[in-house]
């Protein structure tokens, strides 16, 4: 199993990944509380970016509404915990289930009726917006006034109920990101992964070769939704408050996908590199502004926008593919073709 996973991965790449993992493992020992929270954010974005990448990067289906799955996952686990005291480890079953159903409904509606490209992207936004407004009026989870988890003093780590220090959440997110990385690597090499890439490059040709396009597109949406909802569970228990206006908002969806786009769509390392770059730069700029005493809301987003603009204009395949080639780590997992 492990031998199969490692097949064809360049030695240097493996060594670099190992070094990175080691760095991430010892990071909390040196980091301050603030840096640790930045580290958590980076891993969170890397994880969700990886999940989104399954749909867009592997199967070529552009989703602009991934906040839907984060929000559903967060709300499902949080509501079960608050109302019934059910552990998030059991609650995440509900989270994954709800997100998969939402993904399946969306996929079914879209793929059955040939809703593709731009139309599909807008349908995903419509679903997320529908959920946002719906949750605003969902009194079981307090609607628009926000849903809060009980906050206790974090003297001990209760992993079972996900009550504990930021350090615990950091390691949890790290474990999830590593698992997502390995899972995506395995998916990309699986039969389904090759079907996805065939569909991404040309749905007609894939269909002609006998690939069940509908089934595999559905699989991509459902798997991506399930993974994304797990990030939502951790999000809920880390921040302890949920507002439909924030968690389902379109700007959240866009924030989630900037990482993999800037890092490199369809690559495995792209989401991590993108999350590292964006979160690192944004937090660095926030610090710098704090030092300078400038406090203007919106500056961070303008900066995001300009970064995105520059990357899509000058690095259409993201930061990672050219970087990997430069470092001699390239094996060619990303999109190469120029259309």
């Amino acid at each position, binding site marked *: 199993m492990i031998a199969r996973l490692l097949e064809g991965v360049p030695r240097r790449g493996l060594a670099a990944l190992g070094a990175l993992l080691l760095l991430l493992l010892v990071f909390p020992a040196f980091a301050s509380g603030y840096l640790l929270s930045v580290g958590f954010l980076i891993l969170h974005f890397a994880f969700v970016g990886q999940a989104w990448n399954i749909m867009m990067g592997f199967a070529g289906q552009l989703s602009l509404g991934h906040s839907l799955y984060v929000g559903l996952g967060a709300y499902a686990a949080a509501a079960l915990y608050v109302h019934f005291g059910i552990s998030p480890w059991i609650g995440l079953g509900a989270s994954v289930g709800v997100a998969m159903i939402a993904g399946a409904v969306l996929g079914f509606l879209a793929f059955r009726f040939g809703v593709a490209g731009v*139309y599909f992207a807008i349908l995903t936004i*419509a679903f997320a917006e529908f959920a946002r407004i719906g949750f605003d*009026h969902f009194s079981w989870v307090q609607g628009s006034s926000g849903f809060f988890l009980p906050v206790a003093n974090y003297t001990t780590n209760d992993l079972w109920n996900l009550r504990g220090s930021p350090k615990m959440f950091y390691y949890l997110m790290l474990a999830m990101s590593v698992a997502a990385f390995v899972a995506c690597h395995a998916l990309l090499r699986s039969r389904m992964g090759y079907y996805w890439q065939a569909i991404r490059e040309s749905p007609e040709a894939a269909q002609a070769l006998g690939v069940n396009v509908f089934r595999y597109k559905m699989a991509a949406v459902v798997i991506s939704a399930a993974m994304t909802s797990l990030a939502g569970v951790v999000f809920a228990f880390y921040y302890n408050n949920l507002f439909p206006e924030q968690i389902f908002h379109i700007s959240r969806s866009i924030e989630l996908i900037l990482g993999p786009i800037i890092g490199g769509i369809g690559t495995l390392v792209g989401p991590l590199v993108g999350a590292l770059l964006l979160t690192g730069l944004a937090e660095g700029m926030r610090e710098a502004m704090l030092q300078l005493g400038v406090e*203007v809301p919106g500056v961070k987003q*303008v900066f*995001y926008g300009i970064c995105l603009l520059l990357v899509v204009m000058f690095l259409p395949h993201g930061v990672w593919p050219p970087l990997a080639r430069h470092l001699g780590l390239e094996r060619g997992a990303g999109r190469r073709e120029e259309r």
Partner: protein
Amino acid sequence: MPVEIYLNVAASGLLTGLVYGLMALGLSVIFGVVRVVNFAHGEMMTLAMFLTLVLFNALKLDPLVLMVPVAAVMFVLGYLMQAGLINPFINRPEHSQFMLLVAIALVLVNVQLIVFGPDAQGIRTRYSFDSFKLGPLVTDASKVYAAGAALVVAAALFAFFRFTLLGKAIRACADNYDGARVVGLNVKRLYALTFGIGSACVGAAGAMLMVVSDVTPAIGPANTLLAFVIVITGGLGSMPGALLGGLLIGLTEALGGVLFTPSAKSMFAFALLVLVLLFRPQGILGRRET
């Protein structure tokens, strides 16, 4: 509740819907010709609204007069955006274009936030509190004027595309990119003109909307979505479809607001979108692409 209330709400929804329709018309024209979905549409609309606000405060002219300079400024902005930023993306994959416009939208909305602040701002005209009575119907005068202006601009746009040489040339680009190049049309310039015209529509619609509602930077993304919902309902690329979609969405939102709660009104617009995508993905008046 008496029937009159529903009639009044429906009438007001239809009138607002016409202004929405004009905004969506801009999106539809751009998509129909350039084949790029303008993801920054609502943000351009709020920009036009803020422009109207600034001009109104400086000149004290009626917003429906200010419509002309605002539309002109938006035309220039749209032309430059297409010529400078979007034209190099014409042959790029869809998601790449999408990201470009998301980036533009992000910059636009937040620059507005920095410049104008997050609070809702409005203007008051001398007819702000007037109303018209027609049998049992009572409607705001400002809504009637705004809807009338929207109809005039839409009619002018239809005439432009049908009767002028330039309009025909633009339609030729939309029908056949290679064919248009073969007969010697400067497609890139015509694309820029089209984006300018679409932006001018948004500019005009923004000035009109300023008469009937307030503006904050935060409504930009919501308006982008609204414009999408309208054009997809009516048919992306179909000009009458955009107006019809605007009317339908205006009506749906108004009635949804009164039947349930106003804050849930957009849910009905999205529900309508899902229904349309289900049963007629090309939109009510759209043509199926091959």
